[in-house]
């Protein structure tokens, strides 16, 4: 017979889940939990400086490893602060288990100090959530929360625990089995045959790899299908890394900031195969005009995604790794020379970059330089804005989970804490963060966490002293009326980083950036480099929001496109 209080039970159950890191901030309503955590021999607590940072740090761990990330927050403001990170995890299907403190059950509903309806507020942004009513319920809730977060389409689960439940005594006979990812079967054979038949008959197929490929660990199978059928492949932002960028059949990212050649090819394909991708509007543009000629095969583990936005001719519901594995032998090898040639010509006509754009102090140039210097097994995190899209466009991602970026929610402030999380998960690897001066300011307090934990996080601030991507939209779509997107003061980010105790450099215009990158990437520990970028540098091509992907603006040789 085991006897302990609810808080101790939670910590023990987390240990049994093999959780070894928890990010969070304590407060009145979760102090019993912290008191119990203090006793743990195996769990290390990462004290963040804002609960949103803790949520993103847990996400960083989850995104880099594929396992569940865990974060703690207190009731009221702690809970509301962490919501953005939870919503972000929901939209990108990231397994996070968030445990919040709540006022004692007897005070719920009385507008008690630091009481908010965390349960009610998190219904629409979690895969599932719990308000724990009895301490013994934790025995099934905690393992089930992990099982839910990790199984099927992953996602965040929130557990709200009133303070009296944390201190209540529980006695029980037997420990529950830890919750784990439940395997799902592949799509059924009859549909697989139909899909193979459709692929074999297609003259101009394209395979689109989404984040689901990465969640399912299906990149080898995806490559198998691509190579066997010579099927050109594109990736969503969340799918980047699932096929190496330099693969001969890779067309890079699709959508709003895709290479012109990729979007043009998609408009012309006769079969669009989505694998673990959900037809997000940033990827498809105006959906009714997306791949207008094409049949659609949609593979997804979540049945609700199939035909949600675009009717699928064949839906393959099931584990995408197994589905692809079963599909490959049914595919007739086919060189598809005409189609591949057509795409190659497009790629030559509309390259993503130009020699002028890849000099080291231009956005593409500096990203490519960092890529050259970063170890094969390093990670890249981004924030949200132009710097994110430039990175997605040209960084040669070559393995799943290498990129950590906020796709669905597009949350500025994601980058720094997520990079810290990845670095905690892999302390021997280097994590580079490409951020903007706007985004960095949204969770800049986490510089303290990076220093305190002494991690190999290299922060590259692409500083255009503006909310660049917003400014670009005003420039293009609001008659150049630039309003509220230019900052009026110059911030010395290097001085700020130094104030937190971090090594930092200001790259003066004309300085030797290559040398600076080499130095920074060669030394251990956290570091920040501030690099001025001209405000006028825009991300192209760009599909105007709401327009068809065929209506791209700008980019190399845009004038040749009629």
């Amino acid at each position, binding site marked *: 017979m085991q006897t302990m209080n609810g808080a101790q039970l939670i910590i023990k159950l987390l240990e049994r889940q093999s959780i070894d890191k928890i990010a969070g901030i304590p407060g009145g309503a979760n102090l019993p939990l912290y008191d119990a955590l203090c006793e743990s021999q195996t769990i290390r607590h990462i004290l963040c400086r804002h609960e949103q940072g803790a949520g993103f740090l847990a996400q960083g761990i989850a995104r880099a490893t594929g396992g569940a990330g865990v974060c703690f927050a207190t009731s009221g403001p702690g809970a509301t602060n962490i919501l953005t990170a939870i919503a972000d995890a929901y939209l990108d299907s990231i397994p996070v288990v968030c445990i919040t403190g709540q006022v004692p059950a007897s005070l719920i509903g009385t507008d008690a100090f630091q009481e908010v309806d965390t*349960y*009610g507020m998190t*219904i*629409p942004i979690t*895969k*599932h*959530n719990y*308000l724990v*009513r009895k301490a013994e319920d934790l025995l099934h809730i905690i393992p089930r929360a992990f099982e*839910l977060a990790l199984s099927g389409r992953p996602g965040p689960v929130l557990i709200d625990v009133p303070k009296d439940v944390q201190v209540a005594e529980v006695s029980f006979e037997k420990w529950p089995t830890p919750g784990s990812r439940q395997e799902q079967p592949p799509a059924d054979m009859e549909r697989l045959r139909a899909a193979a038949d459709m692929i074999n008959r297609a003259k101009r197929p394209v395979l689109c790899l989404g984040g689901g490929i990465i969640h399912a660990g299906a990149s080898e199978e995806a490559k198998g299908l691509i190579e066997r059928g010579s099927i050109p492949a594109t990736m969503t932002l969340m799918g980047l890394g699932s096929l190496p960028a330099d693969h001969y059949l890779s067309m890079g990212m699709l959508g709003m900031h895709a290479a012109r050649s990729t979007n043009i090819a998609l408009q012309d394909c006769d079969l669009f195969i989505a694998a673990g991708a959900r037809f997000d509007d940033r990827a498809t543009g105006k959906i009714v005009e997306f791949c207008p000629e094409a049949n659609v095969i949609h593979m997804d583990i*979540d*049945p*609700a995604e199939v*035909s*949600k936005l675009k009717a699928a001719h064949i839906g393959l519901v099931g584990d995408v790794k197994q589905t692809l594995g079963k599909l490959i032998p049914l595919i007739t090898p086919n060189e598809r020379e005409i189609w591949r040639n057509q795409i190659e010509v497009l790629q030559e006509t509309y390259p993503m970059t130009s020699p002028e754009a890849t000099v080291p102090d231009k956005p593409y140039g500096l990203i490519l330089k960092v890529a050259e210097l970063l170890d094969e097994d390093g990670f890249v995190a981004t924030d949200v804005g132009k710097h994110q899209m430039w990175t997605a466009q040209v960084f040669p991602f070559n393995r799943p989970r290498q990129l950590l970026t906020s796709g669905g929610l597009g949350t500025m402030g994601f980058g720094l804490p997520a990079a810290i999380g990845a670095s905690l998960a892999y302390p021997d690897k280097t994590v580079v963060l490409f951020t903007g001066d706007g985004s960095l300011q949204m969770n800049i307090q986490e510089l303290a966490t990076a220093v305190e934990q002494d991690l190999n996080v290299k922060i590259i601030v692409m500083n255009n002293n503006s909310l660049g991507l917003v400014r670009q939209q005003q420039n293009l779509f609001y008659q150049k009326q630039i309003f509220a997107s230019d900052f009026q003061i110059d911030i010395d980010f290097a001085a700020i980083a130094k104030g937190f105790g971090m090594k930092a450099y200001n790259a003066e215009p004309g300085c030797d950036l290559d040398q600076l990158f080499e130095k920074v990437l060669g030394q251990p520990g956290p570091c920040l480099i501030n690099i001025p970028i001209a405000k006028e540098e825009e991300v192209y091509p760009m599909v105007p929001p709401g327009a068809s992907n065929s209506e791209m603006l700008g980019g190399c040789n845009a004038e040749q496109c009629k």
Partner: protein
Amino acid sequence: MRNSANNTIKAQGKDMTVLELTVNNHPGVMSHICNLFSRRAYNVEGIVCIPIGKGETSRMWLQVNEEVKLEQIIKQVKKQEDVLEVERHDSGHEVFLRLASVV
């Protein structure tokens, strides 16, 4: 407000699809279902919910005024952790007809 006679009949449930759910009975389950419908902009015209058996589960009837989105709605409802079963009644359900006689 419904004015036309046709709509009044519809509201009484004669030919509006009714989804009959068996759900875990706990205080949050109604919020989960109602939130799903409002968040995804699905029209629900009527809801009835009562505990069944020993009170561990509840039965819920949702009168759904959606044709195009119906398949999508059912998939989303089935995904809910607390939903144990979903049954679809395309020609309505007598629960609503009987209720209509008392309101």
